[in-house]
């Protein structure tokens, strides 16, 4: 089945993303891919689509789209956006089906910056170096979506219930960092300020990074030979302004990185709305790796629940559907209220 969706409105950071473009850091090509990787995985688990496939990534401004042709099962996950399908409110993490004439509207919720909207089937889009991930500054890959664009989904499936997804575990507390790799470009006072002071997510954020408001962490020198860096780097410019680098980060740069946000905490940091206060705490590399493994294990268990809900609400078995409904009711109770 071929499904055609018309984009009626889209926020300025709406792009197509897949798991990312691997293996080309050495050519200056960053990985890209979703900012909230857990949400991205949840979309595929909920739809039963191959992990890593292309989805639509949303940010502030959300998206409004209408189904012109065919039907399309969809899943929305990430942050706390509000979604309405033909005027009926869905949970912010939910699945549903678009039929001809259906209109899906996703708007900013009370917090968060990023969400993923995926569809069962193959999203027809441009690729570069084997990936549909949009590298926003270069306009490479699937690309940015704007009002008037059409999305085409081939081999779409529509056997999907409208349901809320089980909510992920919420992690709170300071954002954990590993100091360095260029901590020696900073005076001890700057390192103390990084770990003792309160920062705020600044209004300036995009897929390259989120700027932080707070004390100036002025480097001792900005005469640094360009060196490779990775997602999570807290890079400081000559004026002392730190930026946490995200999925579209530069692959090398000549501004020093005072610390690196650990992978287990990076995506929740990226979801902090501008104005939100945050603190950093230093951990060792071994602690950071342990946190990554623990987070991956917890996520795998939760993704099994997300996928199990899909299997339980399949269209073939009333008993399965009842079992699924019970599971969903429990989830909705846990959220403190119905969302349908």
């Amino acid at each position, binding site marked *: 089945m071929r499904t055609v969706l018309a984009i009626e409105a889209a926020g300025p950071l709406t792009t197509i993303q897949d798991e990312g473009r691997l293996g080309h850091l*050495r*050519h*200056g090509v960053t990985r890209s891919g979703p900012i909230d990787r857990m949400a991205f995985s949840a979309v595929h688990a909920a739809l039963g689509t191959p992990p890593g496939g292309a989805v639509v990534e949303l940010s502030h401004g959300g998206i409004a789209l209408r189904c012109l042709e065919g039907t399309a099962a969809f899943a929305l996950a990430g942050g706390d956006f509000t979604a309405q399908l033909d005027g009926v409110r869905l949970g912010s993490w939910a699945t549903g089906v678009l039929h001809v004439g259906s209109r899906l509207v996703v708007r900013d919720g009370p917090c968060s910056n990023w969400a993923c909207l995926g569809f069962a089937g193959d999203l027809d889009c441009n690729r570069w170096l084997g990936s549909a991930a949009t590298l926003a500054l*270069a306009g490479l890959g699937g690309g940015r979506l704007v009002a008037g664009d059409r999305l085409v989904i081939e081999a779409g499936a529509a056997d999907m219930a409208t349901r809320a997804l089980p909510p992920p575990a919420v992690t709170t507390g300071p954002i954990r960092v590993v100091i360095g790799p260029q901590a020696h470009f900073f005076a001890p006072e700057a390192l103390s300020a990084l770990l003792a002071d309160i920062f705020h997510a600044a209004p300036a954020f995009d897929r390259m990074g989120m700027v932080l408001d707070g004390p100036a962490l002025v480097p001792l020198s900005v005469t640094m030979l360009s060196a490779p860096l990775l997602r999570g780097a807290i890079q400081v410019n000559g004026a002392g302004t730190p930026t946490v680098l995200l999925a579209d980060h530069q692959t*090398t740069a000549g501004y020093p990185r005072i610390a690196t*946000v*650990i992978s287990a905490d990076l995506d929740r940091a990226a979801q902090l709305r501008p104005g939100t206060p945050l603190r950093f705490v230093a951990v060792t*590399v*071994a602690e950071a790796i342990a946190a990554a493994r623990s987070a991956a294990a917890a996520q795998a268990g939760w993704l099994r629940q997300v996928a199990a809900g899909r299997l339980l609400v399949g269209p073939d078995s009333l008993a399965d559907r009842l079992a699924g409904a019970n599971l969903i009711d429990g989830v909705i109770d846990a959220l403190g209220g119905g969302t349908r």
Partner: protein
Amino acid sequence: VIDPIVYHVGDTGVLLEFGTAIDPAVFDAILALDAALAADPPPGVTETVPAYVTLLLVYDPLVTDAAAVAAEALRRVRTAGAAASSGRDHLVPICFDADLAPDLADAAARLGLNADAVIDAHLAAEYRVYMYGFAPGYAYMDGVPPALHLPRKAVPVRSRPVGTVMIAGGQCLITTLPMPTGWWVIGQTRVPVLRLDDPQPFLFQPGDRVRFARQSRASFDAGH
């Protein structure tokens, strides 16, 4: 054999620093280690990224850990040795007309030179490609003569078009995307370092040598 300093990049990278100043022999050692790791990647190491004086090893923390990656990298340093200098030669036309070189006059003034002296010095030098970085296709070249060394501006400024030739310190590069820069823009070329539709999109490889040749405005405007 150079013993690198090991820095950790969060829980996904080990950065080996082989020196603090650009040195062809240091870079040859980095290229040799990079080649050795590519030929036989250690478990969990997903990518390596060479740069002027550093080599980044990217790893999957669910598969390996920082200590194992660092230990294996240091072991390979001792066995990889240094590759002989290699690479291809490129000749890149460049136009220095004022509207294509908005920083040329300011750079010359700061250097105590006139614009022609800056141009002559830039054309006389041979450059070596040390790495790609910053954005797709940005090939960093070393070899700007000391008389032209200027520090980067503290904060990046206005966007410049593709093909902008710019310098900072001893480094020179040709842009492949329009974007703001803190470097000094001294000219422009039509040579595409990034060819998006090509199965091998990157014109230069680390280790290649580049010279520039002055191009007339008529030739530049004709798209050569």
